[in-house]
């Protein structure tokens, strides 16, 4: 289905999409004299899985931070489902239905798995300070939220852990929890920052299934990933960044054949062994993690 959507879209950077959920114009971010992000124009098609790739330090996480209100760009405009997001604080962006996760998981370790889930729910009057004092009013909603959380936990195979502190989960389970928690916000666009990083192969497989399922339910997904196999497997469309710019985009086949992409990656790893330590240091440093 999604492949049809892109039938008439040319694989050139900044190309317009038939039904964009996210539109970015001229967003740029400088640190000192260095340009971390500089996007002329970018559109994300609604209801598809869009992969965002690029060498370390390409500015992928910074772009996520900018778009979701966790960082402020030096200039530019962007909108989500027709809502102008410029200057909007992160929590308002999330409430509009554009929810992000983080490269380093932010499971709330000292809260139970269930409390983590409930936190994602919106519209709970008990979260207001005066509403909190009227338990008979928030209890009903709480039950509703809990029921919704149960379903999601079941789906992400975390139901047996519901009353455990999130800190007792394994790294992979925390990734799952973070994804499930984000879904509690009922997003229409979900932005995943390396959801597969540090997750064992079996869990990666199930995460992939989950992400595809989200798309099939009509959600839009943007995700940052390093693993090329994963990208090629599930992306309907791929965006490629290097040195802050959008250098290429297209379907998996287009991108794989694009010389600019190959150049960007070869240039990055030229004459050096990329040890795991290097990876960590660089991605944290250059991308400026969440």
């Amino acid at each position, binding site marked *: 289905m999604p492949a049809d959507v892109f039938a008439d879209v040319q694989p050139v950077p900044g190309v317009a999409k038939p039904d964009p959920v996210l539109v970015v114009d001229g967003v740029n971010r400088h*640190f*000192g*004299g*260095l340009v*971390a992000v500089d996007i002329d124009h970018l559109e994300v098609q609604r209801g598809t899985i869009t992969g965002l790739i690029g060498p*370390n*330090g390409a500015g992928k996480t*910074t772009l996520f931070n900018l778009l979701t209100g966790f*960082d*402020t760009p030096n200039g530019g405009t962007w909108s989500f489902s027709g809502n102008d997001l410029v200057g909007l*604080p*992160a929590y308002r962006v999330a409430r509009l239905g554009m929810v992000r996760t983080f490269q380093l998981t932010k499971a709330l370790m000292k809260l139970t798995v269930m409390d983590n889930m409930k936190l994602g729910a919106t519209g709970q009057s008990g979260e207001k300070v005066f509403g909190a004092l009227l338990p008979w009013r928030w209890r009903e909603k709480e039950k509703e939220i809990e029921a919704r959380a149960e379903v999601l936990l079941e789906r992400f195979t975390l139901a047996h852990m519901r009353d455990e502190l999130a800190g007792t989960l394994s790294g992979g389970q925390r990734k799952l929890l973070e994804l499930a928690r984000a879904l509690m916000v009922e997003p229409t666009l979900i932005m995943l920052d390396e959801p597969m990083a540090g997750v064992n192969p079996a869990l990666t497989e199930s995460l992939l299934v989950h992400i595809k399922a989200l798309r099939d339910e009509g959600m839009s997904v943007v995700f940052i990933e390093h693993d090329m196999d994963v990208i090629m497997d599930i992306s309907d469309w791929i965006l490629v960044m290097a040195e802050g710019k959008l250098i290429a985009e297209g379907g998996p086949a287009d991108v794989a054949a694009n010389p600019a992409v190959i150049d960007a990656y070869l240039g*990055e790893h030229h004459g*050096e062994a990329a040890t795991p*330590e*290097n990876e*960590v*240091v*660089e991605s*944290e*440093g*250059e991308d*400026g993690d969440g």
Partner: protein
Amino acid sequence: MTGRAGSRLLAGQHDPVDDPGRAAGHRRFSVPRLVAIALVVVAVALISDQAMGATGLLGDNTLVAQAGRSFGARFLNTVVDGLVVGLIIALTSVGLSLIFGVTGLVNFAHGELVTFGAVVAWFLNAGTWGFQVALPVATVLAVVAGSVFGAGLEKGIFGPLRRRKVPNISLIVTTIGLSLVVRHVILIWFGSGTQKYRDYATQVAKDYGPISITDVKLAIIIVSLLVLALVGLLLMKTKLGKAMRAVRDNRDLAEASGIDVRKVILATWMGGAALAALGGVFQGIGFAGVSWDLGFKLLLLMFAGVILGGLGTAFGAMVGGILIGVVTQVSSLWLSTEFKLVIAFAALIIVLLVRPQGILGKKERVG
């Protein structure tokens, strides 16, 4: 890639990291901004002068002594006095700021490092320990003792806590506890009274044109300026100084590029504590004498200076400290001396409102 980034840092340039954890320094010195701030301060002071009129709020001894002189002379002398205060704050806050920059720790026990220096020098100078040492020598010894104390704190407390990954908030609470312990140990050890150093106890001011100043205060100005200049040079030119800045800007990157981060942190503690001790001795000589809570009383002024200049930068601490000293002292020309501290703390809060990164700090990610 990593090696390249490391050498870039060592060359004194900045990496593109926007690290929300640290208000890292950006050494673009903005003269117009400083001038603007100075002008605002003077303007406010002038306005309040008219508002206060001759209501007799002036209560400072030095002002009474200067009552017969022209306003210009009084102003100049107050500025010089403020310079002495400011240089002492600058000396003591460099360590506070650098330790924050390199380790991310806000040390509420930094005042006790200041007291420690003043007290050690006093004991040496007074001959309590069976031998009497001239104050300049005692000062040098106190500075050495201070740096050993600083090393002890890092080795014995903060290093191990950092390796245990104790959260930042807990570390700050630890420094509060440490401050209580050290301050009251000094209280028992030194006593609750205020003591003058045996040397330089009485001083006569000499006139240099319109400015009249005691030899000791002049010496404090000169030595402080020399020491601060030396610190600046060390930071800019030596390998250690560059390593400190590299660690401050990005610890992981610095470590990956072969810098021995633990050694750098230890050196920062030793240097910072040594400067604090020196400032403590100067405070004891130049002003109130030595007391068990001398440093604690300076702590908030140090914070004011450090935040004014930009938390984490040595140069910010210097400029901010001097500014705080001069502004508070000059304010006493118009306002009651009771308001000196109020003004310093108010300045601190206003700076955070308008420019949280301080005069010399880099813009920090907010919200």
